[in-house]
């Protein structure tokens, strides 16, 4: 049998709340520490205990670490999902299972490894009863480690990190790992082709999740105030802010330079953040779709009253009784037009962990420079899963506090200033901050019913002037937001536009499209709205541009069509919204279904019929796949 080295996927099927996340993270981290590119995705239900949950790991020597739909190695611990898990193993794959599950194995095309997890754990008298299920997960870690060659030393490193150096749990868990490995060594004959071999591809990288990165980035951005209300998948962002602030902003006098308040709801959370932003603090809140809905009225007010505030939206499928633990990019058009009346939002779109860090600090600069709410749209996949990442980079620009006038500035102006005067002709006015003692500093903040000097008026001409200035300010915003990232292929006529956590899947799909389908593509990854000039130029340059995203209605496609009506016919939309982290398979199939480059129009249409991306019928889809038909 030919060995398959560093190129496969592992799926663990367990019950929610069974403590398997420690075990699964340990596998992920050990492989990472072996220098092999790897990713891990937690696919979990909205439930504390009992429902089936899966963890899928992708190992790939070439660095393609988007979720792989096919499972090569499956570990089944949960009787409720056993049949499904067994069926999901790819032909020639490996199946580990807990042998207390007495269900039949009806497949002969895979290697099967039954694990006596319960009896092995029981054999160690030193494990207290109520810890057995928890540490029992480490048996499969050990067995898997032996069978695919995970370095046990790396497992120990991962456990030490997880338990923050606490010897007792490290020892207890590691003894189970060794027991599992020992059992596999004595009882299993290797019948599958999957092996790991150490590489050197990750030594300069770190591993973290986007919410942690965003929190730490915010701290390097000088966060002073955060208000939040618990919501999956955003809670860990605020919790990380609370966790890291005392260490990273420690002062000799022991005093705090920040305050974090858990609000009574999202309305109050954004209200407090806007109050703090108005009072001159770097303020933020973090939430997900349903919370963002509650923030709508305040977001509109902050837009009109020109108050800087940062809002992180870690997107998921909503509402709370929707699929709240599944990833999504479906808050986009909502966030783009959030608020009543004519509003347009500044939106940042991080795709990687280090970008979550970078946008964590940069968002404050942008918000204060533009005196407007900045929405950072992350998602559950990037926010909650562990990703490999470039290390965080110290901010490369000093803090930009924007146009703020203090006493001496007003002294120089002889008190002659207007809060909403467009003095610099860039749509951005000057502001003063409470605590400014100059008698001319104060102004009364209202929505749009004010003149250039913040005096109450409902005069139509003044209102129109103000609204036009806000529009000018928004157009000017493109000069302050992160520019898109372009990856060009020589001779490509097809363009791909995407954003956020789908990046890995797109990069792999580009590779597959070139290799399997002979289609060369260029990829423009958007990082912000309003769009930089490069976006229009990219669309203009290509015969066709397919916008790939994770929502039903092709929301980014809509926004692009609205912004570039002259190119509307060039823009096509490929979507997937099954709630799972993006895979190269659906990106490729989605692109093929919409691909209409010259001479390929007819065959592309045919492909579209056979290659509809669908998770439930993925096997059939890949069998029928027009790509393969074409090859034959």
């Amino acid at each position, binding site marked *: 049998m030919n060995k398959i080295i560093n190129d496969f996927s592992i799926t663990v099927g367990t019950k929610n709340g069974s403590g398997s996340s420690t075990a699964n993270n340990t596998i992920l*981290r050990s492989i990472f520490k072996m220098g092999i590119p790897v990713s891990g995705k937690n696919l979990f239900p909205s439930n504390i205990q009992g429902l089936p949950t899966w963890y899928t790991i992708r190992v790939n020597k070439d660095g393609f670490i988007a979720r792989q739909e096919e499972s090569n190695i499956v570990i089944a611990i949960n009787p409720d999902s056993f049949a499904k898990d067994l069926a999901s193993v790819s032909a020639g794959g490996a199946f580990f299972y807990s042998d207390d599950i007495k269900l039949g194995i009806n497949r002969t095309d895979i290697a099967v490894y039954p694990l006596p997890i319960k009896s092995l754990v029981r054999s160690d008298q030193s494990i207290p009863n109520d810890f057995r299920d928890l540490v029992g997960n480490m048996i499969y870690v050990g067995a898997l480690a032996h069978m695919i060659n995970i370095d046990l030393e790396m497992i120990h490193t991962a456990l030490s*990190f997880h338990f923050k150096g606490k010897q007792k749990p490290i020892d207890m868990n590691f003894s189970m790992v060794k027991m599992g490995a020992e059992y596999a060594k004595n009882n299993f004959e290797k019948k599958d082709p999957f092996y790991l071999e150490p590489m050197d591809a990750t030594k300069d990288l*770190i591993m*973290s999740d986007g919410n942690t990165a965003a929190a*730490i980035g915010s*701290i*390097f951005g*000088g966060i*002073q*105030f955060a*208000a939040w209300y618990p919501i999956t998948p955003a809670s860990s962002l605020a919790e990380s802010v609370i966790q890291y602030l005392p*260490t*990273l*902003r420690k*002062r000799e006098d*022991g005093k*705090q*330079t*920040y*305050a974090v*308040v858990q*609000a*009574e*709801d999202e*309305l*109050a*959370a954004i*209200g*407090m*953040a*806007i*109050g*703090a932003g*108005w*009072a*001159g*603090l*770097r*303020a933020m809140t973090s939430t997900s779709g349903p919370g963002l809905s509650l923030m709508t*009225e*305040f977001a509109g007010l902050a837009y009109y009253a020109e108050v800087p505030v940062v809002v992180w939206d870690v997107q998921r499928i909503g509402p709370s009784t929707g699929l709240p633990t599944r990833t999504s990019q479906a808050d986009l058009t909502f966030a783009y037009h959030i608020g009543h009346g004519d509003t347009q939002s500044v939106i940042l779109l991080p795709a990687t962990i280090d970008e979550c860090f970078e946008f964590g600090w940069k968002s404050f600069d942008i918000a204060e420079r533009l005196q407007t709410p900045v929405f950072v749209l992350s998602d559950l996949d990037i926010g909650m899963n*562990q990703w490999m990442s470039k290390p*965080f*980079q*110290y901010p490369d620009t*000093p*803090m930009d506090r924007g146009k703020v006038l203090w006493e001496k500035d007003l002294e120089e102006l002889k008190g002659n200033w207007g809060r909403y005067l467009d003095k610099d002709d860039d749509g951005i006015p000057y502001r003063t*901050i*409470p*605590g*400014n*003692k*100059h008698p001319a*500093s*104060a*102004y*009364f*903040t*209202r929505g749009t019913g004010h003149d250039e000097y913040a005096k*109450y008026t409902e005069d139509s001409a003044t209102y129109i002037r103000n609204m036009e200035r806000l529009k000018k300010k928004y157009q000017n915003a493109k000069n302050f937001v992160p520019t898109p990232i372009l990856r060009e292929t020589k001779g490509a006529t097809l363009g791909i536009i995407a954003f956020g956590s789908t990046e890995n899947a797109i990069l792999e799909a580009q590779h597959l499209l070139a290799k399997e389908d002979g289609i060369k593509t260029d990829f423009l990854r958007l990082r912000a709205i309003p769009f930089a000039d490069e976006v229009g130029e990219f669309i203009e340059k290509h015969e066709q541009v397919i916008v790939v995203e994770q929502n039903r209605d092709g929301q980014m496609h809509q926004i692009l069509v609205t912004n570039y009506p002259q190119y509307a016919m060039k823009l096509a939309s490929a979507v997937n919204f099954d709630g799972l982290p993006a895979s190269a398979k659906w990106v490729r199939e989605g692109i093929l279904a919409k691909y209409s480059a010259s001479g390929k129009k007819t065959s592309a249409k045919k492909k579209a019929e056979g290659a509809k991306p669908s998770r439930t019928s993925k096997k059939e889809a890949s069998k029928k796949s027009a790509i393969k038909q074409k090859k034959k």
Partner: protein
Amino acid sequence: MTMENLPMAGTPANVNKAGLVKNDYRGAPSTLCQGCGHNSISNQIITALYEMDVVPEEVLKFSGIGCSSKSPTYFLNRTFGFNSLHGRMPSIATGALFGNTTMRGISVSGDGDSASIGMGQFKHAIRRNVNMVYIIENNGVYGLTKGQFSATAEEGLQLKHQGTNPYMPIDICLEALVSNATFVARSFAGNPKQVKELLKSAIAHDGIAIIDIISPCVTFNDGVNAYHSYAWGRENEQPLHEISYIPPRNEIMLEREMEQGEIREVALHDGSVVILKNVDKHYDPTNRFEAMRVMEEAQRNNWLITGLLYINSKAKPNLSATFNLTAEPLNKLTEVDLRPARSMIDTVNAMMF
């Protein structure tokens, strides 16, 4: 009490200790209806702050939406203010007051703003003991939208175009008390002296000070029998006590002025004192249980009970005082204070796996 009567040598008669004249405390001309109780309250806010020598740049004004919430435009032109959203003033104030915790908030809300749409934020601001005076100008009606019932309107109230109110009213002071407010008072806009003295006490209080001021709507709710009308208010007002606010003074003065028996003094955190002349000699505004009882009693007897109903100036620190913040206001801190040192980036990366 007022400085007008006691001119100091060398200073104009109308200049207070902050070096300001009353005009420095005024706002834009009111656009509320003539005879509106809210205007009377605005005037007392102006007078109270002027008489207390408060520097206008050292307070912050907040309001929600409604007739009452328009009123911060009509006082303190030299003070930063935020006319926010309907029912959401408390959250704006909560965040803003972290900018510079030496500043005290003066917030104006209404019965619609605080007892209906903003009931949640009203109670949570109280629970957090946000450092502000929270005035509810209570007229039992939605004035700005032309006369709908509010949640404080009494059951059976009849309004033109609205019919009869079928629901029980919400008592703002009771709600404040059960939410653990540290200062609860009620007054009547037609009793300006009491309003002023209560405002002064509230301004001197550390933490949240709730003042429910029955402020009749002359346009939409001024039937003779309406609970929130002038006529009813004047007739049914039951002051708990005569109240006088005495600014901070030294101890000798305090001893000399001490009278026995009829007068009860309540010390505020800054050393100032509220003197209550009790109608009911046994009433003790530091007794929460008593406060609950007199309000319940007033409700049963259809009395409008006014005065300082409850105060506990030592109950707990105000919200920002619980944070051990820097002496320098947060909004004066710069990059040196706010951005971790360059070396910390390695520390952080080392903390990741």
